[in-house]
């Protein structure tokens, strides 16, 4: 029993170390340990520095502990009184000064990085300005320079700095894309937060809400899509095209206008921001942030299937969300399926 305990104690730091060596931990589009942009790299650099210092500290503590536990174990028949040592001024100063030095070594790059992270690019002409608004339980992205609004999928040009302005319409949320940057809270009006990051490599990154915001907090996910400059411009153009696409069937279109557009917007139609903007929803990465769109069905289902799942009972997908059940709005199953089909085909590409 004793040997197992010591073995465990001795193996722990090695495990920590290996864990970090294998920074292959986790998915590239999700893990803090596989940073994909300068902001996340800056955090990761500090993590590596601090964990290295701390592993050294742990190794020292563990070795001294292991040594005293083995060396000074009371032996059978041993009964003399050990010397009652008061302390040692030199030693105590030593283990006051060494941690102090270690703290300074960590504090200097920390302070540098804090001020670097405070640089928010809000007045940078080259940066793309995005106003992020948290809602229970979805994300709204407004491109203030271009006058367009989208939800759930944040499309950004690769390599460009994105200057964020964060706010919320209800409770606190926290905007987090682990592989691109650390998180920042969305506070209600009055304490708007700003920060920025960039994604040099094209790809899709998983974003999360990190602040408890109600039952579906765990489902308040979003995607960041880093695309080429041309693709981004093309997307902007399509988003700005004023004409909204509506269902072909006029009866369904009327139903959609009456029931869905009272909260949602498509194209130039009725943007009051109560629900996610649906323009081009068919080309998004997911429905409701968590139903992943994957036509091959490997990780998720087709957009249409997902939309049907969502529209048939939003509450079962995201408990506590603010969307009324379409059935309660008087939509029949055929109408729901029709709207799902229309939305699935409302693509921008």
């Amino acid at each position: 029993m004793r040997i197992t305990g010591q073995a465990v104690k001795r193996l722990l730091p090695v495990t920590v170390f290996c864990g970090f060596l294998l920074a292959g931990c986790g998915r590239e589009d999700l893990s803090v340990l596989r940073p994909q942009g300068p902001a996340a790299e800056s955090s990761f650099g500090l993590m590596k520095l601090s964990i290295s210092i701390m592993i050294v500290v742990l190794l020292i503590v563990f070795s001294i502990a292991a040594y005293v536990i083995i060396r000074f174990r009371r032996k059978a028949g041993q009964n003399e009184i050990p010397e009652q040592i008061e302390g040692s001024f030199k030693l105590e100063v030593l283990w006051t000064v060494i941690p102090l030095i270690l703290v300074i070594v960590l504090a200097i790059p920390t302070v540098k990085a804090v001020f670097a992270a405070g640089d928010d690019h809000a007045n940078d002409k080259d940066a793309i300005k995005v106003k992020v608004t948290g809602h229970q339980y979805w994300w709204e992205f407004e491109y203030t320079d271009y006058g367009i609004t989208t939800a759930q999928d944040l499309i950004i040009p690769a390599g460009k700095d994105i200057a964020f302005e964060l706010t919320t319409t209800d409770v606190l949320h926290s905007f987090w894309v682990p592989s691109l940057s650390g998180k920042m809270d969305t506070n209600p009006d009055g304490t708007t937060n700003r920060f920025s990051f960039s994604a040099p490599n094209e790809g899709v990154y998983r974003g999360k809400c990190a602040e408890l915001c109600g039952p579906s907090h765990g489902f308040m996910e979003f995607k960041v899509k880093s695309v080429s400059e041309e693709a981004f411009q093309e997307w902007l153009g399509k988003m700005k095209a004023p004409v909204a696409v509506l269902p072909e069937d006029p009866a369904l279109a009327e139903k959609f206008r009456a029931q869905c557009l009272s909260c949602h917007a498509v194209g130039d139609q009725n943007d009051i921001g109560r629900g996610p903007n649906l323009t081009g929803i068919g080309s998004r990465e997911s429905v409701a942030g968590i139903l992943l769109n994957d036509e091959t069905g490997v990780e998720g289902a087709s957009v249409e299937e997902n939309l049907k799942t969502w529209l048939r009972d939003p509450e079962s997908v995201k408990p506590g969300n603010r969307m009324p059940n379409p059935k309660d709005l008087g939509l029949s199953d055929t109408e729901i399926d029709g709207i799902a089909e229309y939305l699935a085909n409302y693509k921008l590409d």
Partner: protein
Amino acid sequence: MDWITTVDHKKIAVLYLWAGGLFFGIGGFEALLIRWQLIKPMNNFLDAQTFNELITMHGTTMIFLGVMPIIFALMNAVIPLQIGARDVAFPFLNALGFWTFLFGGLLLNLSWVMGGAPDAGWTAYTPLSSTTYSTTHGVDFYTIGLQIAGLGTLIGGINFLATIITMRAPGMSFMRMPMFAWTTFITSAIILFAFPAITVGLVLLTFDRILGANFFVVGGGGSPVLWQHIFWIFGHPEVYILILPAFGIISEVIPTFSRKRLFGYSSMVFATILIAFLGFMVWAHHMFTTGLGPVANALFSVSTMLIAVPTGIKIFNWLFTMWGGQVRFPTANLFAVGFIPTFTMGGVTGVMLASAPADFQFHDTYFVVAHFHYVIVGGLVLGLFAGLHYWWPKMFGRMLSERLGKWTFWTFILGFHLTFFLQHFLGLMGMQRRVFTYLPNQQFDLLNLVSTIGAGLMGVGMIIFLVNIYLTSRRPADAAADPWEDGRTLEWTIPSPPPEYNFKQTPLVRGIDAFWKEKTAGHKAMTPAEPVGSIHMPSATILPFLMSVGIFIAGLGFMFSRDEFRSPLTGFLFNNYVVTAIGLLITFGSMLARSLFDDQGWHIEPEELEGR
């Protein structure tokens, strides 16, 4: 009846222990439900709302109703004995403190059966905790239950301050006090300064929720960030309220079982005071992502890292206490020695978290969950286990089984590391905390499964401990006065369990580790500082119990004062604050009775003392 009216610190210690143990069990059960829900992705064992209630209640219960009372149990059982006193300074208040804690805790847990537990997290961040987003009475139970329970903690803290300042035995200067007495003293001082902050915060939140005030409501000019400041100005020192007593316990257990005096006693005292001081300076490190700006983040980063220095002093002093000693490993010392590396691991992740730009990534993820469980479970709970095994014979006169104790230790500590070590990686791999489930294929699945298995193992450890207590309680109470044979402090000079007056004659303290000093000088007992004489004892009284019942009723009445009731009578009683008034009447009536009828207490005469 004897237990309801007692004012004896030793009995109150036992009450604290059982009540704390009960709530600890509830909190632990909640933890197991949480872990069971997270055992696999997209699990539907619990629904989202219940999960949020469970995490809120698990955190709140463990911090306020689980570990704090067990700390208070040990303080009550040991502090008067360690400083050579016959009781605490205010025995009546001591009983009052216990009863308000118990009724506050009961009120909070009533929420489970009265229409919804609090669901806004143990930090109750607004606006989520406002009536707009938390529509049940859950958060009202939280604010009012914690105010009542907090009253008990504050009373207890003040009592220990007064006790330690005024009631030390002759010769026991501050710098001769045992470390546990020192950490109790500093902890009580932190309680004195930190608890008023949370009380104010809870009152403001109560006003917002029940009386429609706007302290934290943006639309009414309030600020949700203000709540975070108030909460953490209390919440960070609270961490030290929890961990300092554990430091004290470790500083008692390790010297005893190493047969050596504590290495660097004065630097330990200095480190304790420094930790308490710094503990008040660093609250905003819980708010790095709130958007306080780079200046605040930099200052709070650096000041937080500084806490590593006094903590490091302590770790090395403990290690060097064992150096050159003769170390034995009964269960108490296993826990104490197991504490050192485990707590160190929690400490180093604390330094990592202190670096604000790195914390932008760590914050609100499982990395933080892992960190604070390393500190609170790997630090405090291991410390409490060490203390309970160490002082059990003193409290109950019975030795706990060593064989079962060792089983408790190994299952608990292995289960603990299995549960929480992996959670560091879960956080770094992108799993945020407080999520009721997670999507598959994010590489979270295996780690969560193992973590849940570990939690089960910890549960097994706890059950073995309970079995140990049960079996022990059936054996005769025959523990020796100094059962570990190497007792160094005053509590080991009197019988186990101690008589109700503790010390027949107040001992004369002639140095640090007073009993050890006498033993090495060849004496068998302490030199008395007074002749045998009549001992004054306080009378038992039911008033503290009644006062707490009154506050409990008043709290319930106030909470439901704005509700609509089906029965007009109930409606009348609640809506017109009649229930509140009845409750307050009981409380203030009891206070009046306490003031008007002067109770002189009673005496134990020398004949009776000698007769034993």
